[in-house]
């Protein structure tokens, strides 16, 4: 047993660091480090830089233009990128729809869609949840009726994250009402410019426009945009969620944010007048998070190593362990960061999150994002299959209850 990087992994880490030092634009990193607002152009810029280096898709096999990195190498890359303040790559194309297209899509779909995801030309969003079908996805009602060479789609999707920027949406739609609710679902790729699609913002509790409601009104989708077989979409959806939940462990991001919290605690002042870090009660909470995150990191590495040994097995239900713990730790970091800022976190100054803002502030620069982050990140335990649903999965699949 050896918890250190191997010689190859060390060399790889150095290579990634050198790349980040040379290619990550300092202005972009500054925005990320200070939790300022990122625009669509920031994500596209970074994706373009990665693509140029051949690292556009850390999780893809080489045959599709990916890096062919092992799961551990991907983890090292994500950890280093997060530490350097690189923006998160957009999951929806790279990590969510692409693996489905690779595994279940046909050659034409692979050739048409994958290169554009890699280059950042196409921005994808996800059409899974609906007003009446969140974590209980099987009760979704958006329908697609086959008419000649088209499906006609009608219904409404909710929580379409960053859908306001999207070129394409991958949707779960009902193509049959026969049998079990899971059985009549299909997986469709839909052009967001199609007539009949309306996108309306849903403003989140931190005041940000991050998600949308997407309406489909007699939207015509060519049948060649069906992935795999009709009515087999549930299988593909479950496959996708397994991919998503490892990412939701988010270890690299949390490590950086915890480091930042430690810095905040050295700058902020406790009621005693001493630096907050010297307050034992506060410091114990910080120590607890460090311990919890270290345990999660090792748990993640154990899972990834096991997967590397037997790739066919896939991640399976253990991904739910990572999702629950990762999101709980993330939420605790945001909460403690807000707490560290004291009442300075109470001011609502969204303009202070814009890059280049030089107006008046309340408290330090870090205080502007603290409460908004806390409010917004309550979503972590809800999306991607709520943590309650994850506990159902663990109890049924891992414990056999």
């Amino acid at each position, binding site marked *: *047993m*050896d*918890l*250190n*990087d*191997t010689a190859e*992994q060390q060399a790889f880490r150095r290579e990634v660091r050198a790349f980040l030092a040379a290619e990550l634009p300092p202005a972009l990193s500054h925005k990320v480090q200070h939790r300022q607002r990122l625009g669509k152009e920031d994500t596209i810029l970074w994706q373009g830089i990665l693509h140029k280096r051949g690292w556009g898709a850390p999780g893809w096999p080489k045959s599709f233009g990916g890096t062919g990195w092992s799961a*551990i190498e991907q983890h090292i890359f994500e950890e280093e990128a997060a530490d350097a303040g690189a923006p998160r790559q957009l999951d929806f194309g790279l990590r969510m729809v692409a693996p489905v297209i690779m595994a279940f899509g046909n050659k034409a779909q692979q050739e048409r869609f994958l290169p554009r995801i890699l280059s950042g030309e196409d921005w994808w969003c996800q059409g899974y949840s609906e007003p009446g079908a969140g974590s209980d996805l099987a009760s979704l009602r958006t329908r697609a009726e086959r008419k000649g060479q088209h499906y006609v789609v009608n219904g409404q999707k909710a929580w379409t994250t960053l859908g306001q920027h999207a070129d394409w949406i991958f949707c779960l739609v009902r193509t049959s009402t026969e049998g079990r609710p899971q059985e009549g679902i299909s997986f469709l790729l839909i052009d967001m410019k199609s007539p009949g699609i309306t996108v309306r913002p849903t403003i989140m509790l931190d005041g940000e426009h991050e998600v949308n409601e997407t309406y489909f009104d007699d939207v015509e989708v060519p049948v060649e945009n069906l992935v795999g077989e009709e009515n087999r979409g549930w299988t593909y959806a479950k496959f996708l969620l397994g991919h998503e939940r490892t990412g939701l462990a988010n270890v690299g991001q949390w490590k950086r944010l915890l480091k930042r919290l*430690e810095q905040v605690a050295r700058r902020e002042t406790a009621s005693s007048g001493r630096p907050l*870090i*010297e307050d*034992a009660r506060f*410091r*114990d909470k*910080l*120590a*607890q998070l*460090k*311990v*919890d995150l*270290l*345990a*999660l990191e*090792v*748990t993640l*590495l*154990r899972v990834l*190593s*096991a997967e590397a*040994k037997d790739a066919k097995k896939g991640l399976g239900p253990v991904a739910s*362990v990572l999702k*629950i*713990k990762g999101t709980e730790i993330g939420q605790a970091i945001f909460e403690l960061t807000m707490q560290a800022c004291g009442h300075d976190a109470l001011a609502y100054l969204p303009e202070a999150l814009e890059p280049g803002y030089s107006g008046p502030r309340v408290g330090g620069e870090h205080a502007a994002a603290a409460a908004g982050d806390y409010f917004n990140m309550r979503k972590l335990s809800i999306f991607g299959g709520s943590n*309650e649903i*994850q*506990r*159902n999965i*663990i*109890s*049924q699949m*891992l*414990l*056999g*209850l």
Partner: protein
Amino acid sequence: MDFSYTEEQQALQDSLRRFLTKEYDFEKRKHISRSAVGHSADHWKQLAEMGVLGLGIPEAYGGMNGSPVDTMLIMESFGRALVLEPYLPTVVLGAGLVRDVGSEAQKQALLTPIAMGELLMAFAHYEQGSRYALEHVATTAKRDGDGYVLSGAKSLVLSGAQAGKLIVSARTSGGARDRTGVSLFLVDRGAPGVSHHGYVTQDGGRAAEVKLSNVRVGADALLGQEGAALPVIERAVDLAIAALCAEAVGAMDALLETTREYLKTRKQFGVPIGKFQVLQHRMADMLIATEQARSMAMVAAVKVQSEDAAERRRMVSSAKALVGQSARYVGQQAVQLHGGMGVTDELSAAHLFKRLTVINTLFGDADHHLALVSDGLLVA
């Protein structure tokens, strides 16, 4: 990174588990716990024959030169079966200290008998009023001709009434909490001036209060350098902590298993209670806590070997804190899920819970070790 075990490690663990399943079931364990001595000489002998007792001992003294990762595998299996035999005091602490700082003569005299299962050891260190502070040593060792005279009292000496030899910490100089001036001595339990009061611990194990009244030992009783024992003690205790973390994981595994079976068989309102979502979620959280603890037991086993003492401290304390918290959670919830049966003496669940509670307290509880990690942040 590599989380796998070698073939030898896997084989040793497999045979140990087979042995314990066959020879150390819950009823047998209960019987052993209630015997006068509190462990079984037969089982101890068999563990010696399997090579388990010599695992961490160098080959030159009849051992297998194993690492803390090997100890982890053994302790995890012991945790599952609630093994009472004094592996921690004799092998991890006793043999570990002699191996690390003993003279050639001391190694020859002690290590082979330990590996053969012929000698039990105890580490007499903690004192009344020390709580978990390892530097607190009020027991004195005064020079007397060629040798020393030891006086003082030691607390919670694991196997203190069973061991043939004690390793006693005592001050050769300095005040009660100085970091220098602590020395280690090998003392026969039967030596004149050594008295003890043995007792049963909450988990059915054995410990003793030990008194030393003008105990005279020769110069050859000094273990390691005079006055420089504290770092040696700290490392030995860290090895014991790493071992305990692994034992806790084994006990948590066993609790998960037995609780799961109980939820599948016990019926209420016409269905197995495992069908109730609130209980399913509790079990899911117990599984998560156990997996987090397993990761940290691995961290402890690997990082306890670190040359960097600050890194070792941070990692071992992180592990003990998280494992202690997980042990408390999994133990308490398992009892709760067993309902009324969980608070009886009849089920293994109650005994696993008690052992986990004891493990959390031994060598510093979760709060103590979290505070060490926390205070480490001040120097960052």
